[in-house]
């Protein structure tokens, strides 16, 4: 047995020679006191909320740190039959686009709203990569409140990064496409394809988003982004690849040049140009979906115009900084002075200096232009290079103590280095193939220097196997000391790309516990059981239903026919925390509902067969939850069955026609 583990250890050691001379396996990677650092005793709360992107599941999951416990999955870009999101009449509009209702997406990055460069715990922004969209989630209810579609974009990847006071959320194109919908040959890429950087303004008070303007850039792939801070407050930085402008076999053709660019955008200038009328209003259709808290209903508005800013007409707005090979992360340190580019194919990490960049611009130290956009000389903007950091640097976060931490995809490790002298200080392996990493507040002016989480793509031997597909993992490291220490790994839901985290105290006490029923402004609210009603108009039947422990009113409904469109408007009358009621109907192909206390939600049911359809509460609400049910009688079309409804003593009443 010992021999076997020794041999296995040797095998690992040879493949992981780059990492460390000490052999590390799943079992030996953790030191003795790790458990005590992540143990959150029953009845105690976690320190930190960790918001993790859901990747291809289109949702956002919320974990507690340091325990790694999953607290909630917030549906954002994906329908969720669990609670009716995207299925209920109220929320269908949230997923509306100019291509109809799109019930899924690829959710990559998240950003928590900030004030003065610090997290303020108000909103969480999320991007949809596939059908370009940006969503805003309210952190008092953990509900998606708004989704804005982005026109003239494909692969909304460098998104939704925000400025220091949440003035703007950005959305940068990964796949360049022609503007508008003109029919052009793919081979005309260089002439007809463009990338755009969209700037979405955010209302200070309501959070409401608005597509303020788009900056038209040459055809290339924008990858990631981050806003400046402090001295670089006015600037936004995007990493790019495929500045070769290839349109086929990118794996080879987009890796030709030694350097791609970091695109530096002066968004303050852009804002001024937009206000001064330097932009061009062009037709573009995109959906803007908002959820009205008072009406408890989402509406979708189709907008028809967007303001384009062309760098040609707007001098000093955009500059290019050369950055070695296909940069991914583009991260700004807490002081706002250093811009870290991560060439994912480069064997070094270039660190640029904001003050040097502005000096170079002032002194016109350019080395030509890219489609009219000035290229700053590499050396003129460079602070220095981190030598031999590892392979495949992707993304960097900061601890607020002068250190940077970069994820290395190819060599599967996290590398800690010093911003001051660019020396590598420490490295730890990840299990396995880390993508992004995250330090709570690690991309703000005030990072929390206690924990780092690595989000891994592969897990192999980390958890109990589950068939061909294994869970991805998140790994928690204690970074409070000189040496990073792995203290926990936990499986994740979906494939997390990026994450955000903040102190629990910032959000915990702001939670809405229930909706005030007296403020319920839903068009189909039922204010008390006495108001319960069934109304027929043609073949549309509206059922005004109430739910309270442990019954539904009405719970007997007759006089509904095959072919009717039946709308169950269920109002949860409870005024108590954590007492949602569910609602489901037998054979309903739609979904079920979860109705929060004080809320009204509508489920549509179109019976196409006669019969008795039981309906019931699906959320175990009380000792008499099983009894919380009723019957809908569906009769053949044209049958002589009067419309009747009632519950218990209220007897079956006949609705006046």
């Amino acid at each position, binding site marked *: 047995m010992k021999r076997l583990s020794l041999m296995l250890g040797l095998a690992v050691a040879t493949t992981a020679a780059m990492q460390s001379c000490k052999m590390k396996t799943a079992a030996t990677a953790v030191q003795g006191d790790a458990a005590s650092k992540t143990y959150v005793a029953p009845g105690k709360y976690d320190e930190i909320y960790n918001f993790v992107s859901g990747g291809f599941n289109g949702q956002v999951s919320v974990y507690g740190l340091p325990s790694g416990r999953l607290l909630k999955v917030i549906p954002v870009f994906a329908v969720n039959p669990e609670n009716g999101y995207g299925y209920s009449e109220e929320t269908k509009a949230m997923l509306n686009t100019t291509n109809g209702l799109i019930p899924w997406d690829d959710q990559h990055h998240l950003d928590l709203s900030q004030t003065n460069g610090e997290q303020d715990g108000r909103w969480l922004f999320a991007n949809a990569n596939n059908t370009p969209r940006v969503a805003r989630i309210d952190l008092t209810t953990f509900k998606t409140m708004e989704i804005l579609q982005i026109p003239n974009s494909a692969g909304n990847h460098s998104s939704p990064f925000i400025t220091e006071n949440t003035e703007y959320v950005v959305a940068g194109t990964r796949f360049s496409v022609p503007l508008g919908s003109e029919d052009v040959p793919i081979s005309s890429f260089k002439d007809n394809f463009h990338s755009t950087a969209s700037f979405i303004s955010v209302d200070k008070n309501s959070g409401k988003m608005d597509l303020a303007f788009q900056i038209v850039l040459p055809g290339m792939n924008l990858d990631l982004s981050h806003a400046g801070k402090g001295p670089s407050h006015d600037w936004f930085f995007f990493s790019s690849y495929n500045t070769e402008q290839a349109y086929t076999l990118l794996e080879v053709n987009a890796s030709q040049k030694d350097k791609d660019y970091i695109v530096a955008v002066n968004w303050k200038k852009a804002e001024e140009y937009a206000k001064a009328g330097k932009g061009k209003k062009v037709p573009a259709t995109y959906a803007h979906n908002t959820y009205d808290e008072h009406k408890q209903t989402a509406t979708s508005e189709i907008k028809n115009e967007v303001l384009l800013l062309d760098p040609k007409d707007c001098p000093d707005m955009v500059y290019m900084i050369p950055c070695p090979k296909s940069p991914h992360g583009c991260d700004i340190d807490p002081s706002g002075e250093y811009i870290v580019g991560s060439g994912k194919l480069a064997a070094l990490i270039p660190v640029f200096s904001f003050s040097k960049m502005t000096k170079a611009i002032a002194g016109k130290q350019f080395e030509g232009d890219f489609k009219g956009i000035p290229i700053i000389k590499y050396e003129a903007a460079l602070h220095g290079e981190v030598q031999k950091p590892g392979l495949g640097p992707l993304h960097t976060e900061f601890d607020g103590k002068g250190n940077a931490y970069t994820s290395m995809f190819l060599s599967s490790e996290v590398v800690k280095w010093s911003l001051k002298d660019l020396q590598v200080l420490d490295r730890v392996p990840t299990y396995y193939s880390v993508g992004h990493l995250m330090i709570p507040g690690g991309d703000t002016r005030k990072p929390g220097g206690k924990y780092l989480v690595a989000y891994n793509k592969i897990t192999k031997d980390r958890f109990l196997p589950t068939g061909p597909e294994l869970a991805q993992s998140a790994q928690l490291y204690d970074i409070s000391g000189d040496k990073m220490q792995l203290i926990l790994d936990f499986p994740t839901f979906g494939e997390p790309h990026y994450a955000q985290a903040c102190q629990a105290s910032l959000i915990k006490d702001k939670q809405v516990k229930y909706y005030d029923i007296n403020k319920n402004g839903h068009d189909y609210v039922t204010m008390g059981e006495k108001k319960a009603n069934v109304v027929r108009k043609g073949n549309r039947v509206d059922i005004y239903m109430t739910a*309270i422990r*442990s019954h539904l009113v009405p719970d007997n409904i007759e006089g509904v026919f095959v072919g009717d469109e039946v709308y169950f408007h269920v109002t949860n009358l*409870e*005024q*108590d925390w954590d007492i949602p009621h569910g609602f489901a109907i037998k054979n309903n192909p739609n979904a079920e509902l979860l109705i929060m206390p004080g809320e009204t939600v509508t489920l549509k049911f179109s019976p196409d067969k006669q019969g008795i359809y039981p309906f019931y509460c699906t959320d175990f609400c009380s*000792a*008499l939850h099983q009894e919380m049910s009723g019957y809908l009688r569906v009769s053949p079309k044209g049958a002589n069955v009067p419309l009747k409804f009632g519950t218990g003593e209220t007897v079956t009443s006949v609705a006046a026609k």
Partner: protein
Amino acid sequence: MKKLSQAGLMSIPVVIICLATLWFFPMWRIDMRAPQYPDGLSMQIWINDVKGDVPIINGLNHYIGMKTIHQEDFLEFVFMPVSIAFFMAAGILIMVLKKKILYYCWTGIFLVIALLSFGDFYRWEYNYGHQLDPNPPIKVPGMSYQPPLIGYKKLLNFEVLSQPDVAGWFYIASGLILVGITYYEWKKK
């Protein structure tokens, strides 16, 4: 007739102010706690109302067939303010007349009101705890649900604590002042 002493006279406005708190603060509270209600439930009884988590408590009580609590079901909420208001007015009259014997009567009336209110409170709790719906969803053999008049009691998995609230303490204080001054005046003659 003997005149009231200076102390006796001064006690009257103090008692009136103490009683006036009944209109600004709850007089009694019943706190409940159970594992599924970690933050606890609380009901505050005012001179003319019952407030707090009453809807939630009503919801729970329906399991065991207890009547739901509604402000309009209590005649006490009319009688109490009226009788206390009269009592306070009487105090002003005594302050003008300054007669010892009237002060003794005043104390006597207070004690009668206090005794009656406590008796009524007990009857109220008894009825709620015992007059249960014969067909409740949950029936625990031999169980009644009368809350404690004052102090702590365990009812099923609920811990119940019944105690005076702010105005209740002022009410008790005014009773102590009244009895104390009466005793003092009595001794002095």
